[in-house]
């Protein structure tokens, strides 16, 4: 049987999605349900002095109106930061309370204060308008770079500083810098982004008065984790009385990792009013309250020798956490950022210092790439600038500093198991016709345009798991993944996974893997996920971990199935176990060539004494019937995809418009299970990365109002903003999992912003501009180019 792993199998889930048969949270309606609308703070920072519900309570259709007082009385806990970070001076990070409904202070525009529950959505909305909240408006802290000088937002948190964290060795870096011929410096802003999942967040909660169980249908990337947090920290219900279901979910990009206020409030309120409650975010609510991404201000330096050897690296970053620290809020700008900031290079000495600050803006958390795009942007801007200042070709400079051997002990944390960075770069050069660039630049110049080329070589640490590693870095839980493989008596298979698919295509790839392992047709396999009542526990999907951790757990469970099956086959074929080979779904007795299919074995395991066997059990003595196996996989290390992206842009100096003319991406994801799906992931990531580099920007005004809170003002890139992406792959197998796979979900978003910005800045003759490189900014840069009579070389 041909291997399914590696083949372009069409996505099983697409039929459902493309024919409107998907079932999303907002599609769920429960008899007798009520509707929730949240009254949110219109101010970035305010003291809540008084809440008057009297008029709202008299409005038609109102079932209940609840505030922070009630939720506090019921001892419902708040939202949490999942990762403990220690400052350089050894002190613990400072975490403010984050109640599900703000009681005394509102700290960002959109923060929920009151929930209005009514018989219909219209009535809930109308009543919400009658809730009167008396605010004392305070001066907000908005600007990332200035946050430490602002008024204290959270009592007891000096300078609005959550932590001041150091990774690396300042002394060694100073010594390295002392030996340098040149110091390359950059000041960077990693612009704040709104994740913009296509499906806005939503929840439907249903409390059963008889079983006393709460069911929460929600838009989550990790339903088990949500249940754990809501039980252990929220005190909403014990885990056995709380079922969390994340049905089809229309994209997350990290914004659906967190348990949010609304889910906690509606779960709690459903029990209180003993009726189901439905809440669906409007797009404005998504803009205001989904966790945002990025928002760093960085100063970084690279010490180099004249012949282009990297000696040392410094990174001083201020990271904006927003108003509160959320689940991955504190790890994103630290351990997901710092270690990768030295990039794919041998740099003997390095440090990253991050000051994480609170501001009166929406909480910032993981967004596709989480920390690694910021890291890659930092190092790849430095390297490109170094090439310019040293007069060494940018690809040559990179080549000189790539590690020559694997495993590669990277400067700060990681030991990268496998890779070949030179091969990726060479391939990308070829595919992008790097050598032909000067001719294309001349052609552009002949028509009055500027042309630039930018390179970005990256590696990243994903497949977020190794429990020992992440716990030593402060993670609150181990991050393994589980799987359960269940055979029915008649041979179909259900694969339960703790990963969650919200667009990644697990129904397909996981079925491919299991089908190959078990030697059965893919059609016989159903992948089940997203329901805490089905299957074992799971950690969910983020950090490009589904395949490298969750997929491997499936492989291991399948292998346990085969091991058990072998014992039964041996008995049935009357040979010893080591004389049995398992191939293509069949257990074969080596000498006699007699066979039993895995389906027959499953049948025997459920119905051991059937007619075929003269009603005598076919099972080895003492064997438990049934064919169900569970595996928990905790890998030995992270997964380290890597590659080189090359971008070419053309600029119209009269309007400043930047057009991405060519985009080449060469990635090493180890073994590729489904090229179709991997290419889709890379495309999506590049689209978001080009979005960050050229278009997207979440802007708050000085009072803390989000002024880009709709698609009229927040620029989402569209298909006509992109050229055809030119994708290539190299392959070095991961050595830390049996499939040899590496994560591919975030790489596109990690590699692309510096590739694009390096190209823009190259076109501008080295003049630096900040992301997003909007037409007006670029036009201004072009004007000063003209003044200095610069002619692109």
């Amino acid at each position, binding site marked *: 049987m041909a291997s399914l792993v590696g083949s372009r199998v069409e996505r099983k889930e697409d039929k459902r999605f493309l024919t409107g048969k998907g079932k999303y949270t907002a599609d769920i309606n429960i008899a007798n349900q009520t509707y929730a609308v949240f009254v949110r703070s219109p101010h970035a920072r305010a003291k809540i002095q008084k809440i008057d519900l009297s008029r709202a309570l008299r409005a038609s259709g109102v079932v209940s109106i609840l505030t922070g007082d009630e939720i506090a009385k019921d001892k419902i806990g708040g939202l949490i930061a999942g990762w403990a970070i220690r400052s350089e001076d050894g002190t613990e990070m400072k975490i403010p309370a984050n109640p599900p409904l703000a009681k005394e202070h509102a700290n960002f525009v959109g923060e929920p204060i009151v929930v209005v529950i009514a018989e219909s959505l219209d009535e809930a909305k109308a009543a919400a308008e009658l809730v009167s909240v008396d605010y004392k408006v305070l001066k907000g802290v908005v600007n990332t770079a200035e946050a430490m000088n602002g008024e204290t937002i959270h009592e007891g948190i000096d300078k609005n500083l959550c932590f001041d964290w150091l990774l690396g060795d300042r002394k060694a870096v100073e010594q390295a810098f002392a030996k340098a011929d040149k110091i390359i410096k950059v000041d960077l802003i990693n612009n704040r982004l709104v994740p913009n999942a296509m499906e806005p967040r939503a929840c439907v909660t249903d409390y059963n008065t008889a079983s006393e169980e709460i069911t929460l249908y929600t838009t989550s990337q990790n339903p088990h984790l949500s249940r754990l947090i809501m039980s252990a920290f929220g005190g909403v219900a014990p885990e056995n009385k709380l079922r969390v279901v994340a049905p089809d979910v229309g994209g997350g990009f990290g914004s659906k990792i967190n348990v949010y206020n609304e889910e906690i409030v509606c779960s709690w309120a459903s029990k209180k009013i003993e009726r189901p409650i439905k809440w669906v975010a409007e797009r404005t609510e998504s803009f205001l309250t989904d966790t945002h991404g990025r928002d760093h201000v960085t100063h970084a330096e690279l010490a180099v020798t004249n012949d282009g050897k990297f000696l040392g690296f410094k990174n001083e970053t201020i990271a904006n956490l927003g108003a509160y620290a959320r689940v991955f809020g504190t790890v994103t700008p630290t351990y997901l950022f710092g270690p990768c900031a030295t990039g794919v290079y041998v740099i003997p000495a390095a440090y990253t210092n991050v000051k994480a600050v609170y501001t009166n803006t929406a909480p910032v958390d993981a967004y596709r790439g989480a920390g690694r795009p910021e890291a890659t942007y930092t190092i790849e801007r430095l390297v490109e600038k170094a090439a310019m200042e040293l007069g060494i070709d940018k690809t040559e400079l990179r080549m000189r500093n790539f590690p020559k051997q694997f495993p590669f002990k990277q400067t700060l944390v990681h030991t990268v198991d496998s890779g070949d960075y030179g091969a990726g770069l060479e391939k990308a050069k070829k595919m992008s016709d790097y050598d032909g660039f000067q001719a294309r630049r001349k052609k552009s110049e002949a028509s009055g345009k500027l042309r630039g080329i930018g390179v970005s070589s990256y590696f990243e640490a994903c497949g977020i798991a190794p429990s020992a590693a992440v716990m030593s870095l402060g993670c609150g839980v181990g991050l393994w993944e589980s799987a359960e493989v269940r055979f029915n008596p008649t041979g179909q298979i259900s694969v339960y996974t703790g990963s969650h698919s919200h667009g990644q295509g697990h129904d397909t790839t996981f079925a491919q893997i299991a089908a190959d392992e078990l030697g059965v047709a893919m059609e016989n396999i159903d992948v089940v996920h997203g329901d805490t009542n089905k299957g074992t526990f799971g950690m969910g999907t983020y950090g490009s971990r589904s395949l490298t951790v969750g997929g491997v757990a499936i492989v291991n469970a399948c292998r346990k199935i085969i091991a058990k099956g072998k014992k039964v086959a041996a008995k049935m074929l009357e040979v010893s176990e080591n004389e049995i080979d398992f191939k293509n779904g069949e257990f074969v007795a080596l000498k006699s060539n007699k066979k039993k299919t895995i389906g027959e074995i499953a049948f025997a395991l459920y119905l051991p004494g059937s007619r075929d066997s003269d009603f005598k059990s076919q099972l080895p003595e003492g064997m438990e019937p049934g064919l169900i196996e569970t595996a928990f996989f905790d890998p030995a290390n992270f997964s380290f995809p890597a590659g080189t992206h090359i971008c070419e842009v053309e600029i119209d100096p009269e309007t400043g418009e930047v057009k991405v003319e060519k985009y080449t991406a060469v990635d090493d994801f180890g073994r590729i299970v489904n090229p179709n799906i991997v290419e889709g992931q890379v495309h999506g990531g590049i689209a978001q990365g080009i979005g960050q580099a050229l278009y997207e920007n979440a802007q708050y005004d000085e009072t803390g109002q989000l002024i880009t809170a709709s*698609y009229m003002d927040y620029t989402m890139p569209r298909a006509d903003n992109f050229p055809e992406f030119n994708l290539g792959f190299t392959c070095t197998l991961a050595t830390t999992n049996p499939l040899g796979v590496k994560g591919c979900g975030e790489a596109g978003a990690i590699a692309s912003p510096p590739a694009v910005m390096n190209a823009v800045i190259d076109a501008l003759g080295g003049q630096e501009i900040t992301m997003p490189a909007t037409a007006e900014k670029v036009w201004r840069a072009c004007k000063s180019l003209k003044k200095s009579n610069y002619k692109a070389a």
Partner: protein
Amino acid sequence: MKTFNYHAPKDVNEASKLASVNSVFLAGGMTSIPSIKLGLASYKDVINIKHIKKLSGIKVAGKSLIIGSTTKHAEVASSKDVQKEIPSLAKLAGRIGDAQVRNRGTIGGSISNNDPSACYPSACMALNAIIHTNEREIEASNFFIGMFETALKKNEIVEAVEFQIPEKSNYQKHPNPASRYAIVGVYLAKYKDKVNVAVTGAKSCVYIDSDLSKKLSSNFSTSAIEGIKLDSSEMNSDIHASAEYRANLVMTYAKKAVEAC
């Protein structure tokens, strides 16, 4: 959503009678419906005018191209008549918003709404359009009064827009990357004795740039307008573009429009 009375009259008179200070005409609904949904506007009566047959359609009459008010952008973009007589107008319609907007939005709705960054008002100004309503004929230059403001009275309905077919014309647009409305749009129309340069997006209301128009009327070449310094003091400045940048765009696109003619 707020409740309202819905009407679907069959003729203009009936529609006009239903109108009041508390009503809105529903053409494409691309502006009116989002306004209601976002709570920016609320109406007692919503009067759908799409069932009034005579309001839709395109015809050529002598030196004029006449487009019915409920004709959709997509219909204008793909019309053979428009493509032949005023190709720049077909192109303008084909670049409005996105496919969904073009398949619903109408020319009458666009000009009645008079969004400062809409495209059609610039076409009306440059192409010496006459706006035919159920009551009168209004010249474009008297029709667009200010930001979201027109000469229309409460009960007045735009029936058709009559464009004067030019010798040559061109429309250049710098789209807002987010909404795809015009940050700046420059519509240039050349007639035998006169050139009109209409500008949208730059100020609070569409206008004819008299300086550019005059210079191009006497010498139709980019050199005629080279070096003109536009006054940006009344131009819009927002998160998408500063006044200074808008002024640059007007000049740049005026030149591009001349080159394209």
